[in-house]
């Protein structure tokens, strides 16, 4: 467990020294969501209807933007080799890296989403559901994305390939995440969606680090 926390601390410290990389993804999220009203028109009823979908798709793409960097830097400078050979279980170190990725690329989106939701005329309770759904959904995106990042490590055209591999796997998160807000607005209650998101998150917490570890070992062979 200490190894996991040490990895998180290390990656956060590294991100602190190179802030621009983290901020890029956050700015991307803000800009993409702001583009939609400009493209569609400022009609409040329509915007309110498509808000959950837009915010979720933007969150999906913003997470994707940070994924290629998840292991690439450590791969290039050889620290990943040292992690594989470390006495600490690789699964824990990988889990730490994924957690750090979420803290850097996922959590800012969760915190920004209510503000951006205001642009789309969402009311307070819908904003709460949106934030909750993103809070459950963005770690899921980081976990699934890590598998793709490990599989495409050091591969030609890795970034585009990563999107091709990961985006289909993101669809359940998108459906339930955006669906939660829509169901709430429609007065159906978001409980079912949120608990399914939580169930998928629990599943991913168990399996994703394991699959990522296996993929990393293959990538280093």
């Amino acid at each position, binding site marked *: 467990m*200490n*190894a996991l926390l*040490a*990895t998180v*601390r*290390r990656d956060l*410290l*590294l991100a602190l*020294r*190179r802030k621009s990389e983290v901020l890029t993804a956050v700015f991307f999220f803000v800009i993409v969501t702001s583009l939609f009203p400009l493209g569609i028109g400022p009609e409040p009823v329509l915007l309110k209807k498509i808000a959950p979908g837009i915010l979720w798709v933007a969150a999906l793409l913003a997470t994707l933007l940070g994924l290629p960097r998840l292991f690439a830097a450590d791969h290039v*400078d*050889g*620290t990943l*080799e*040292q*992690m*594989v*050979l*470390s*006495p*600490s*279980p690789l699964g824990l*170190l990988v889990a730490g890296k994924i957690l750090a990725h979420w803290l850097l690329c996922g959590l800012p989106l969760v915190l920004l989403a209510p503000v951006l939701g205001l642009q789309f005329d969402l009311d307070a309770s819908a904003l709460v559901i949106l934030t909750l759904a993103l809070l459950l959904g963005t770690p899921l995106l980081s976990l699934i994305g890590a598998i793709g990042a490990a599989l495409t490590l050091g591969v030609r055209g890795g970034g585009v390939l990563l999107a091709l591999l990961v985006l289909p796997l993101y669809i359940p998160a998108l459906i339930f995440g955006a669906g939660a807000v829509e169901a709430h607005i429609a007065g159906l209650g978001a409980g079912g969606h949120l608990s399914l998101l939580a169930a998928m998150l629990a599943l991913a917490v168990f399996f994703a680090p394991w699959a990522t570890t296996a993929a990393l070992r293959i990538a*280093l*062979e």
Partner: protein
Amino acid sequence: MLNVSGLACSRGERRLFADVGFSLAAGEWLHVQGENGAGKTSLMRLLVGLSPADAGEIRWRDEPTPSPEFRRELIYLGHHAAVKEDLTPLENLRLAAALDGIALDERASLAALIRLGLRGREDLPVCVLSAGQKRRVLLARLLTRPALLWVLDEAFNALDAPAVKLLGELIAEHLSAGGMAILTSHQALPVPGGKALVL
């Protein structure tokens, strides 16, 4: 302690080596020699368990590797600098130790850096150091991370004469304390004794 037998490795279609075998006991070291492309680095990666062998067996304390016990007693320094450019040498050492689950206080890490001749550089980001100095930061891990088996791939590259001498001393100390080492190099090494393995 370390027994290797019948090791074979190929890269793509090309067979690099076959039937490589040796054994190391406490205090012994092995000098892996060979031309460029002979498979020295591949052998090292195979020995530490980074890549699987086509055939053969590597046993540590009579147990098959790689195992967590083996990794605990192993330190491998390869071609890569394996240090983070944005962190200082001190942070690099302490974070690497933390990832390995080893408690390392600031005094011990400072002492290691000073021994490696990095006094006054411990709080500069690594990216402003020279290639040789980066190499020294990596080598400081030999002092901060207790390990029985040192696997050093081209460790003498990019080092100046005093550093080569220093690394030679470190290895000699390690061996006389009952440690083991496997080194690759083209040139003669400033370490007495040692078995030779030519690929």
